[in-house]
């Protein structure tokens, strides 16, 4: 094993990751990710700057190779499809290896650069960024704060503990923690930390926050919390003194501290909320984050300034840190074209979520920076295993329970053609919930379902659908870059092998309800936090997947085996054995073709040339503002 492999493993097997799964029963993460909500700082996907940069470089090389392949494709696309996939599998494996070797060097290099670049930064600069949607209210703790696909206000908040780049909680934020036993956790708030309004942060505020988010706060037990899933491990909590809080664990969780460190996990000022109420707080958030809220106009703008009292300096190892920008204004510009126009007209400095077709030419002019941002969402199409009957042929069994049909669907879709031609070309194929390039269940790279429409047709015929298999295909339009395009491409590819696909862009309210009630009877596009560096995340993913997929009973032996492995892994404290158990689960999940596997989304944002940004934590939705630098020209 090379150095990097060990490094990655350390990340994956961090304490936090390990028991994370048990902490997060429920589907908070995945569900919120779906509507792209207040989970901006979703921390499952931590990764170092060095890795990300390295990855970028390699992906550029890969792009070049892919361009050559495209030329070949034009001559004989179909015949070469299989061959190509082998190439790509190799390529991915190579990539992973290269990455391993050079990550450390890159890290060192980057630190040097950083030091040199710091003199160039304008600390008085402000910036205006445009987003496609805004949250309804600014209370990060509320389920209603979702709807900002682009995280328009998570930067007002900071969690109890910061996260280091690998995604593990560290001390140095609001305070420190200590496990007094397997049953309880002591949180000590560092004296001198203050909210945006100048009030000191005390242990009472932390207690209040946990109570509020787990619907135990006396002032309003009906609070519509978005974070209950994060806090299922908490039992009673009691104040020891002004700065010390003891949290009993309802279930043993060494992961407890991490759930308080989750990016964007808010800390609320008790006095303010109790005095003014939830409604007022949703309009004027006071928190501890790196930016202070100034004012907003719903549907128009959110103005913030740097919180100069923010306790973590710019050289702090974790996140968030003291911002470089003195102020930031988020603007709502729903139309993509208008966002780009506004950027070009100089009205804004940063346009979030711009499709690559537009972003790349802008970057080529040299006047703009294009930020390739692995959004760490593995997109796949969930297959409707829960229903018994074929909705199109009442009385007939559900065709998706036939493995041949599921494999046919996977063989029918040329994922690489989609990512290279419609997307940025930097997307990785998803193997189940894990990404092959991270080395997790690496052997799956060789077992990848390739693109083989001929075989797909045969399988469909074998399964008794020689005349075609009619099915709906559901997705929520406009949530992800180019989603309409790639869904139409997928639908067409499925049609080519004999599926009779009715592509349905669904309405968000309807979709969420049906998904929650497990009423979806058709395949549907679904995101999963992916590209995992952590095993725990995988378990979370499977858990949340189960919430949507299972009805009551377990469907088949394979599914039962997956569930058994996950359950066993959750109780397994030995990291190596735990990893093996989860890898086995992934293998079954993938080789069973449980889903139609697609790719990990890469978002593209475009910024003015003066704005530099390196991904620190790879947040799912948008640029971390505290890491955005304005360079002097």
């Amino acid at each position, binding site marked *: 094993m090379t150095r990097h492999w060990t490094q990655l493993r350390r990340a994956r097997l961090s304490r936090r990751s390990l028991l994370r799964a048990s902490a997060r029963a429920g589907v908070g993460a995945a569900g919120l990710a779906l509507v792209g909500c207040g989970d901006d700082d979703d921390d499952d996907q931590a990764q170092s700057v060095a890795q990300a940069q390295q990855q970028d470089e390699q992906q550029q090389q890969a792009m070049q190779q892919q361009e050559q392949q495209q030329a070949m494709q034009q001559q004989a696309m179909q015949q070469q499809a299989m061959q190509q996939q082998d190439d790509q599998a190799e390529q991915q494996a190579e990539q992973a290896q290269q990455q391993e070797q050079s990550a450390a060097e890159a890290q060192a290099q980057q630190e040097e650069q950083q030091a040199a670049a710091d003199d160039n930064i304008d600390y008085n600069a402000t910036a205006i960024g445009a987003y496609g949607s805004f949250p309804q209210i600014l209370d990060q703790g509320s389920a209603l704060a979702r709807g900002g696909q682009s995280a328009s206000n998570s930067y007002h908040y900071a969690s109890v503990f910061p996260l280091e780049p690998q995604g593990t909680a560290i001390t140095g934020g609001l305070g420190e923690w200590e496990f007094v036993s397997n049953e309880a956790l002591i949180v000590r708030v560092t004296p001198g930390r203050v909210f945006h309004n100048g009030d000191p942060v005390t242990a009472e505020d932390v207690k209040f926050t946990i109570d509020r988010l787990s619907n135990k706060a006396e002032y309003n037990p009906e609070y519509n919390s978005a974070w209950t899933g994060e806090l299922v491990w908490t039992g009673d909590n009691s104040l020891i003194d002004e700065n010390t809080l003891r949290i009993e664990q309802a279930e043993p969780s060494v992961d407890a501290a991490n759930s308080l460190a989750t990016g964007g996990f808010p800390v609320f000022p008790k006095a303010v909320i109790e005095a003014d109420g939830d409604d007022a707080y949703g309009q004027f958030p006071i928190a501890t984050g790196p930016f202070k809220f100034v004012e907003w106009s719903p549907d128009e703008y959110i103005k913030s300034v740097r919180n100069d009292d923010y306790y973590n300096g710019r050289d702090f190892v974790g996140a968030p840190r003291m911002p470089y920008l003195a102020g930031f204004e988020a603007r*709502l510009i729903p*139309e993509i074209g*208008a966002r780009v126009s506004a950027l070009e007209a100089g009205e804004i400095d940063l346009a979030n979520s711009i499709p690559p077709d537009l972003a790349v030419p802008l970057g080529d002019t040299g006047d703009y920076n294009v930020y390739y941002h692995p959004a760490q969402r593995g997109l796949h199409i969930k297959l409707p295993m829960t229903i018994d009957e074929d909705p199109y042929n009442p009385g007939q069994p559900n065709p998706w329970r036939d493995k041949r049909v599921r494999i046919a669907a996977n063989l029918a879709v040329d994922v690489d053609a989609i990512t290279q031609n419609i997307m940025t070309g930097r997307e990785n194929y998803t193997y189940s919930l894990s990404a092959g390039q991270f080395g997790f269940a690496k052997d799956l790279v060789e077992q990848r379902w390739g693109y083989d429409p001929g075989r797909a047709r045969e399988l469909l015929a074998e399964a008794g659908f020689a005349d075609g298999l009619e099915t709906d295909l559901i997705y929520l339009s406009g949530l992800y870059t180019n989603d309409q395009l790639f869904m139409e491409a997928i639908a067409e590819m499925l049609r080519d092998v004999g599926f009779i696909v009715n592509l349905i862009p669904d309405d968000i309210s309807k979709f*969420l309800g049906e998904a929650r009630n497990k009423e979806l009877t058709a395949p549907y596009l679904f995101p999963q936090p992916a590209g995992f560096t952590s095993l725990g995340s995988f378990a979370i993913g499977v858990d949340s997947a189960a919430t949507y997929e299972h009805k009551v009973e377990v469907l088949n032996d394979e599914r039962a085996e997956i569930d058994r492995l996950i359950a066993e892994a959750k109780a397994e404290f030995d990291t190596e054995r735990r990893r093996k158990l989860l890898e086995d689960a992934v293998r079954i999940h993938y080789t069973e073709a449980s889903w139609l596997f697609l790719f990990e989304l890469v978002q593209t944002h475009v910024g003015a040339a003066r704005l530099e940004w390196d991904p620190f934590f790879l947040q799912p939705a948008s640029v971390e503002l505290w890491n955005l630098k304005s360079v002097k020209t």
Partner: protein
Amino acid sequence: MAAHLIPRLLQSIAVVFVVVSLVFVGSRLIGDPIEAYAAQNATEESIAAQRERLGLLDPLIVQYGNFLWGVVRLDFGESIFTEQPAWDEVMSRLWATVQLSLAAFILILAIGVPIGVLAAIRRGSIPDLIARLIALVGQAMPNFWLGLLLIFVFAVQLGWLPTSGRGGFENLVLPAITLAGFGAAAAMRLTRSGMLEVLSNDYIRTAQAKGLAGRTVILRHALRNALLGLVTVLGIMLAQLLAGSIIVEVVFAWPGVGRLIFRSISLRDFPVIQVGVLVIAVWFVVVNILVDLSYNILDPRIRVGSET
């Protein structure tokens, strides 16, 4: 005057009532806000409790009764999503939409009507032909496309005006032109044909025969009579600008009522949909009553003591 106005007011109230009731039923048919409202990991019980709290479990007729009673007390409930009063939510965006609509209406009056008059006076001239061509093209152009083209040319290529958002006067220009486009073209055509019709009437010829100068004839006689026919059409236009601004608000990121309702529909935020539509319907009937009243001012046969 009052005798005319009171039945008209009653009628208008009835119209508003029907519109709002239709929207009440329509919005209840599109499903339940709770699905988008509840947290993803919400339990069955908590979802049921939320439904209960929001009164969504009551029979439709009870909800309707509560709603009407609320309207009577001018209490429209809270937005389910922002938990702010729905009335405030709409009102805070109303001025933006009214501003846009009025700007568009002024453009229609300031461009459509005078050009129409000019074209009629100089019938068959080159300016007339150009005006007619513009009017034809303007009426055949979908306004979202016009908006996109305007952004492309004036904001991106020329950089003269901002692309979107609301701010100073310069932000208003492109959305107002876009919203006015169709109406201005229609007003131009209607003014022109109305003027032509009036100009061909006998009494104009008589006036001319009596030796009144051309300009006076046009302004005092022809224009007033032509306007009379136009008032209704312009009134309907003014009323529809408010409701029709959704597309323009979407294209130009204009923070108005149209976009609020658009989003509230997808979230099933009933109270906001209802207030939004109520405001639009009231606006419509008020404008219509104003149109009626303006007849009194413009029509010499109704006005007492006319000097003509």
